[in-house]
Each structure stands twice: as structure tokens, then as C-alpha cells.
């Protein structure tokens, strides 16, 4: 219930904060991914460039080394004036070892070809075109060689072959000296493509394309398994005597593409995000599980609580249909949950159903309902399944769901029939006790009453007997005497009747009621019984009723304090106190001092004090301590209920009963207060005293 009524407002900043956090996380991830991609790209390109540079450098060095080695081998061919046949074999052998060497020629001083050997590993070079047509560059090189007296390379030139193929070649012209005389030239022809193939390792060949290019970018020869894409290129000059060849290494890798890297980055980022989400989810699941177990516990707790309640619970939606009842409510009315679903509810007494429906409509729709009403609840009457009507106390509170919507009313229903029974029983007991106490008082007074009744009865009997005597034995005075006797008989019968009436009036059980009554009337009502007790011991009764708040403009005697009280009960209190006072004076007090004072004073605007004062020996401390203990008595015939009951009665009226020694330390005073009627000015409520 409580959780569902929680308002959403405190959630808003938290949600915003959470969204901000998420956005920041995503932003950071994006930046990181972008940086990662950028770094990856730049790293890849620099690496490809470096690789191309390295390949170019290595290849250039290799080519140069290869050429120089071959050049030395060519020079070695001419050492010692070898025989022609021998030279040709050596040349062939040399070419077998160097694939790039396509042809070796011996020329004389006039550059005419004297001997020529073609490579055994391939087609002869000058098959398509004659050597003579393609020897301009060779001649230039040989001239340079002669001039330099060192081997010199010619410029490269293209030698076409059959089938559209051909080789870009360079010639190496080695001047041959014989005994310090120029003896001719040795010319070796190198195929550039073969040079590249020889210089290039397998690894390099897979990754790069090597080529010789001219200054304008024309490719002379190439090697490599794949073509370069022209993004990462490195060029090196291969400086040879007579000629410089430009070597280019071109990586097959193109510009690093963004997409695969981006995809990688995305996958990575998403993985991270996923991981984070999984973590969060796991945490959430754990929390959820905890919450669920707590909820289950709370539910079990609530269920146990509901089942253990003796208070009936009933929930109704806004249409008045019952949505929930607890077992206590079912037990209370005796209907099952299913039976309770019908309309109108079976626990409404049929005779009140219409009124209840109307009331329910008002209640359920009542928007301006005071919460205090729900707090204080209202009383109603339900009917059990067996038809028994019983009073209930209903407390209602609005039902609010998790979204804060008002969905109905929850009522707590208390069966107050037992309480009512107890209250009624208690009231009856109290009444009975009062009545018993009155009877007990009368019982204690029984001997007194019998004596009192005996007097008139004895007199009546005497007159009756005497009259009979006179009738038997009459004389002239008889009629006069009879008249006298009959008068007396009537008189005494009347007196006996009055006594009986006063006792009956006292004993009769009346409903408790508060009335406003003048103090003198209250005292007058018990005075016959008081005097009856007083007469035996010769006690005088003196009554002193002070005027209430006397004022100058009205004679004080017209005002008598008035009290609000239950007349019967107060009469009993007065009777008890006066009897106690009279009995206290019976033994030790001299006859002329036996005076019982009854004083009434308006002691306060709202209180009237009654004082019953005797001139007896006073109350011993050990007796005083137990004076108000029920059933404590110092008299053999007493029940001991008197004073404790008096105090109860006075306290029920809101007053107080106490006692103490009389004004001169003699006798005992019993004082009690009674509330005065509540009026604007108690002084105005005067009652004329028939003085």
C-alpha cells in the first residue's frame, strides 16, 4: 500500500541524472572509438609506407649488388685470352647462374660482334629484331666505357619478343684490355624484369610490386605477384656506372579503408557497451531478486498479518464492488468471499439495504470527505449469515494505487457487539450494585423501620381492640370514644403508609438520570428517613443551606444552590452519611450535644459543597485508613458498602468525597462536592425556598 502511494516527483532528477550518465558514457565511447579508428588508420598507412620504403631500399641494394657481382663475373670471362669455345661455355655457365643475364657478346674494337652467346634459360633476345637495329645505346655505353676504361651500363631499351612480349634491357659494356691495348669489348645484356625477380624475395613479392620507372613515370619493367595500387610507393635510384635506374616499390595495400576499422571499432565499442549493460543487468537482476524476495517476504508478512487480524478488512473499488476481504471479515459475517461478490452485499441487512446503498454512493463519490471522518469511523449494522444483526465500527481510508490514482476505499470493520454487550452488562452491573446497596441500606435500617412501623401498627391494634372491648361493654360515653379511636386509627394508618412510601421511594430502582435540583429539595427528600434514625437517639438535625453567590439586589434567602445529579443516588449518599453521623453520636455524646449539621455551600461557581458534620468521638486513624474500603465496616449489622459506594457515586458525578475532624477538632465532617448547573450566570438560576 505504502509503496504504491509513492509520488513520482522524487524520481525525476534521478532519471535525468541517469540519462545524463548514459549520454556521457556513449559520448566517451564514441570519442574513444573515433580516436582508435584514426590512430589505427594512421598507423596502418605509416606502416605500409615504411614497408614500401624498406622493400625499395633492400631491392635497390640487392639489384646493385647483383649487377656488380655479375659485372665482375663478366670481367672474369675475358681473363687469360680464353679460347673461343672455352669462353662460350663459360659464358653459358655464367648465364645459367644469373637469370637476369640474357646475352653475352664479344665485340672487337670497332664494336662489331665477334662472338655472342644467348642465355640457355629462355628465348634468344634478338630473334624478332636484329641486334644491329638495337645497338645504339650499346655503342654509346661502349664509347663511355672506353673513355672511362671501366665497365659501363647503357641506357635501357626495349627488345621486343615474339607474341607481343619483350624485355626492357640494359647492356653492360666491359672494355677488354690485352697487354695494355684495347682488345675489344664484352657486352652483357641484362633483362630488367629478371633483375627485379632476382632481387625480390618471396615475401616482398607478395606484398609489393617492384618496378623500374623512368623519370616521367613510364614503367620499364615490373615484378611481383600483384600489382601495386599506387598509394604507398617508395622510389630508389640504383646508381650504376653509366646509367641510373629508378626503382619503385609499390605496396599492394591500398589506402587503409575506414569501414573494416570502423566495424572493428564498433564491434569493440558495442562489446564494451554490451559488457557494461550485462554488468548493469546482472546488478539489476540481483537487485531485482533481492527486491522480489523482500517483496515476497513483505507479502507473506502482510498475509500473516491479515490472517491474524481480528479486524475485518474490506476493499471496494469506486463502483462499490468488493475487491478484497480478509478472513477475519469472512469469519465476522459468515459469508465466503464468493458469496460476498453479489450485489447488494449479503451482509447488509435487507431492511437497510436501500439506505446503505445510498450512503455508499455518497461515501464512494464523496470527494470532499474529511479524513477525520475516516479516522473516527462510523457505526453501522451488518447481518451475519445466520441472520443475526450486529453493530460494527467502520473506518475507511482511500485506496491509492502505484500511480497515485484513487481506486477505491479500504475499510477496517470492527465487530463491536461484544463491546456493546460488555458495556451494557457493566451498566447493568452498576445499576444492580446501586440497587443492592440501596437494599443493603434498607436492610441495615430494617430493625429501625420495623420499630418505626410498629408504632402506628401497635396504636392501630390498640384502638381496634379497645373499640371491640367498648362494643362488648358499652356505656353512654362509648360512641364518643369510638369516634376518637377511629380517628386515631386513620391517622396512624396514614403515618404507616408514609413510612412505607418513603422506603419504597428509596429502594425503587430507577434509570440513571441527571437532573438539576435545588439542594434543599434533595435534603427534604431524605429528611423523613434521617429524622426517623435521629429520633431514637434524640439527635437533632440542623440544616443550613447558604444562598448561592448572594447579591445586593436580591434577598439572599431566595437563592438555593442547585446541583446536577442523579437524585436517587444522591439521596442514598446523604442517607448514608447522616446515618453514620447519627450512629457516631449514639454512645458517647451527651444528649444535649447530639446535633447533626447538614450544611450546603456554593463553594465555587461550578461546585456546591455538602457537609454532614456530627459531634461524635471522631474517627480513629486505623479506621480512617480503611474507611472507603468496600465491605469494611465497624458495625456488626453493616455490610460495609456504604462509604465506598458513596465515594463512587460522588466521583461518577465528577465531585469528590472526603472527611476530616469538625471545626473545633470535635466530631467528624464528611464533605462532598457536586457540580452546579452550567449556565451563563449560576446566580440567576434561583429557586424560591418556601421558608
Amino acid at each position, binding site marked *: 500500500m505504502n509503496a504504491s502511494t509513492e509520488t513520482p516527483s522524487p524520481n525525476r532528477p534521478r532519471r535525468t541524472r541517469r540519462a545524463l550518465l548514459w549520454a556521457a558514457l556513449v559520448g566517451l565511447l564514441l570519442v574513444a572509438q573515433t580516436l582508435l579508428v584514426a590512430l589505427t588508420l594512421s598507423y596502418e598507412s605509416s606502416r605500409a609506407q615504411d614497408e614500401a620504403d624498406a622493400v625499395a631500399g633492400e631491392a635497390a641494394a640487392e639489384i646493385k649488388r647483383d649487377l656488380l657481382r655479375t659485372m665482375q663475373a663478366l670481367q672474369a670471362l675475358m681473363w687469360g685470352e680464353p679460347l673461343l669455345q672455352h669462353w662460350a661455355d663459360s659464358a653459358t655457365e655464367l648465364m645459367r647462374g644469373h637469370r637476369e643475364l640474357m646475352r653475352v657478346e664479344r665485340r672487337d674494337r670497332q664494336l662489331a660482334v665477334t662472338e655472342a652467346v644467348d642465355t640457355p634459360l629462355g628465348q634468344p633476345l634478338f630473334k624478332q629484331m636484329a641486334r644491329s637495329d638495337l645497338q645504339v645505346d650499346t655503342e654509346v655505353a661502349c664509347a663511355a666505357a672506353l673513355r672511362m676504361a671501366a665497365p659501363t651500363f647503357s641506357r635501357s631499351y626495349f627488345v621486343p619478343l615474339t607474341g607481343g612480349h619483350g624485355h626492357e634491357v640494359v647492356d653492360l659494356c666491359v672494355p677488354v684490355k690485352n697487354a695494355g691495348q684495347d682488345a675489344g669489348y664484352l657486352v652483357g645484356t641484362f633483362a630488367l624484369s629478371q633483375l627485379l625477380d632476382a632481387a625480390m624475395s618471396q615475401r616482398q613479392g607478395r606484398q609489393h610490386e617492384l618496378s623500374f620507372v623512368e623519370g616521367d613515370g613510364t614503367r620499364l619493367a615490373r615484378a611481383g605477384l600483384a600489382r601495386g595500387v599506387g598509394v604507398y610507393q617508395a622510389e630508389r635510384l640504383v646508381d650504376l656506372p653509366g646509367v641510373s635506374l629508378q626503382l619503385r616499390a609499390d605496396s599492394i595495400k591500398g589506402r587503409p579503408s575506414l569501414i573494416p576499422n570502423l566495424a572493428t571499432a564498433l564491434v569493440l565499442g558495442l562489446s564494451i557497451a554490451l559488457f557494461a549493460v550485462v554488468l548493469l543487468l546482472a546488478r539489476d537482476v540481483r537487485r531485482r531478486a533481492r527486491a522480489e524476495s523482500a517483496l515476497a517476504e513483505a507479502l507473506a508478512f502482510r498475509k500473516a498479518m491479515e490472517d491474524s487480524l481480528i479486524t475485518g478488512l474490506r476493499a471496494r473499488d469506486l463502483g462499490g464492488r468488493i475487491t478484497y476481504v480478509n478472513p477475519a471479515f469472512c469469519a465476522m459475517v459468515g459469508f465466503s468471499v464468493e458469496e460476498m461478490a453479489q450485489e447488494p452485499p449479503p451482509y447488509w441487512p435487507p431492511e437497510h439495504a436501500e439506505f446503505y446503498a445510498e450512503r455508499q454512493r455518497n461515501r464512494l463519490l464523496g470527494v470532499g470527505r474529511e479524513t477525520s471522518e475516516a479516522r473516527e469511523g462510523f457505526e453501522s449494522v451488518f447481518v451475519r449469515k445466520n441472520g443475526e444483526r450486529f453493530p460494527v465500527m467502520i473506518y475507511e481510508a482511500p485506496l491509492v494505487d502505484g500511480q497515485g490514482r484513487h481506486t477505491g476505499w479500504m475499510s477496517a470493520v470492527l465487530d463491536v457487539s461484544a463491546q456493546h454487550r460488555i458495556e451494557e452488562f457493566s451498566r447493568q452491573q452498576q445499576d444492580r450494585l446501586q440497587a443492592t446497596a440501596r437494599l443493603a441500606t434498607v436492610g441495615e435500617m430494617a430493625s429501625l423501620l420495623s420499630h418505626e412501623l410498629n408504632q402506628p401498627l*401497635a396504636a392501630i*391494634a*390498640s*384502638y381496634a*381492640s*379497645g373499640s371491640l372491648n367498648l362494643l362488648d361493654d358499652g356505656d353512654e360515653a362509648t360512641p364518643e370514644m369510638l369516634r*376518637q379511636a377511629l380517628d*386515631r386509627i386513620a391517622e396512624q394508618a396514614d403515618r404507616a403508609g408514609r413510612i412505607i412510601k418513603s422506603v419504597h421511594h428509596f429502594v425503587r430502582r430507577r434509570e440513571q438520570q441527571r437532573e438539576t435540583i435545588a439542594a434543599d429539595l434533595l435534603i427534604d427528600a431524605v429528611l423523613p428517613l434521617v429524622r426517623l434514625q435521629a429520633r431514637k437517639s434524640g439527635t437533632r438535625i440542623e440544616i443550613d443551606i447558604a444562598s448561592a453567590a448572594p447579591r445586593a439586589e436580591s434577598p439572599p434567602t431566595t437563592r438555593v444552590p442547585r446541583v446536577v445529579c442523579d437524585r436517587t443516588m444522591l439521596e442514598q449518599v446523604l442517607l448514608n452519611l447522616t446515618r453514620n453521623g447519627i450512629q457516631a453520636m449514639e454512645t458517647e455524646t451527651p444528649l444535649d450535644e447530639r446535633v447533626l449539621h447538614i450544611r450546603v455551600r456554593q463553594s465555587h461557581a461550578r461546585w456546591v459543597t455538602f457537609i454532614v458534620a456530627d459531634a461524635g468521638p471522631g474517627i480513629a486513624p486505623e479506621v480512617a485508613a480503611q474507611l472507603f474500603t468496600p465491605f469494611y465496616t465497624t458495625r456488626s449489622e453493616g455490610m460495609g458498602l456504604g462509604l465506598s459506594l458513596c465515594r463512587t457515586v460522588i466521583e461518577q458525578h465528577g465531585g469528590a468525597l472526603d472527611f476530616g475532624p469538625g471545626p473545633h477538632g470535635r466530631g467528624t465532617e464528611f464533605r462532598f462536592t457536586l457540580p452546579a448547573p452550567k449556565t451563563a450566570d449560576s446566580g440567576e438560576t434561583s429557586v424560591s425556598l418556601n421558608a
Partner: protein
Amino acid sequence: MALDPALGIPVVYLVDDEDVVRDALAWLLRSRRLLSEGFGSAEAFEAFLAERREPWPGSPSCLLLDVRMPGTSGLVLFERLVERPWPATLPVIFLTGHGDVPTAVAAVKRGAFDFVEKPFSNNTLVDRVELALQASAEAIVRRRAAAAVGQALAELTEREREVMQLVIDGRPNKSIADVLAISVRTVEVHRARVFEKMNVKSAVELANLLRESNA
């Protein structure tokens, strides 16, 4: 029952604090032709007694006494009567209320004539009163007889009184003569004079008379 009119008019004294009861009883007694005198309290009756001259009462009387009264109660008054020389000629009948029976019974044991429980059957009460008056009358007769015997005894000489005492003791004349050291003849003379003065005819009669007068 008739009383000897020679003894005087019988009087019933009523002591009760209740005027009504007193008046009613007086009226009832009057209907039986009995005179009564009422007192409202024990004190009043005691004051009345104090003024009486002995021997009192001179006529048959009885006292109807209420046990419970304010001031001096009936019982206290009765105790005082018992303590002072209480005339046997004034029998006391207690009027008791409910619950006073044991004290009344005790009073009867101490010499009260009777008690009547209230509410009483009136004529029974009057019958009791008459019995009491009868007893009172007898007491008066006895008192008068005793007074007469006393007077006769006063007239006897010393010797005659000695002789009478020995006669009452039942001694024969001879023995009396021996005791008193006089002659038998003289004893006979004294004896005859004693009989004459005491107005008796035999020694037995003389003994009864003396016993009754001393009772």
C-alpha cells in the same frame, strides 16, 4: 378478674417515648376500665418516683416499660429500680420491639414480671396487665399483713419474744421451760399471750405468719 376495691383504684404506669403508642395504650386500658398514667421518658418517670412517699404504691399498680427509648432506656431504668428498694407492688412488664427479646428475657430473669413483644395482641397485653395488677394487689395485701405482724411483734415483751422463737423452733413447753429456766406454767402463760397478740391459734399458724411476713 376482680380486684378487691378496698385496695384502692389500680393504676397502670406507661413509660414510652412514643406519644401515639402511649395514648393508644391508655385508651385501650380505659376501654377495659383501667386507669393509666403516661410518661414520655425514663427520666420523667424517675422524677415522678422521687416524689412518692413510702410505702408506694398504695393501690395495685404496674409499670409498662418500653425497652428502647432515647436517653435513659427502659433497661437502664429497670436496673436502677432493681438497685434501689424496688417495691414488689410495682410489677414491670417490658414492651419490646423486634430483636430485643433476649434482653427482655434477661430482664425477666432478674425480676421483671413479664415482657410483651410488639406488635402485641392488645387484650393479651391487658390480660397480662391485669395479672400484674393482681400480683401487685397480693403484694399490697402481703405488705399490709406483714405490717400488721410487725406491729404485733412490737407489742410482745422480751420474754414473750423469746418464748415465741422457741415455740417456732418446735420445742415443747417443758424444753422451753428448761432453756429459759422458768416453770412450765409460766411458759404456758407466755405462750397464750403470744398467740393472743399475734392473733393465731396454733404454733404452725404462727410459724407460717412469721415466714410470710419475712418473705
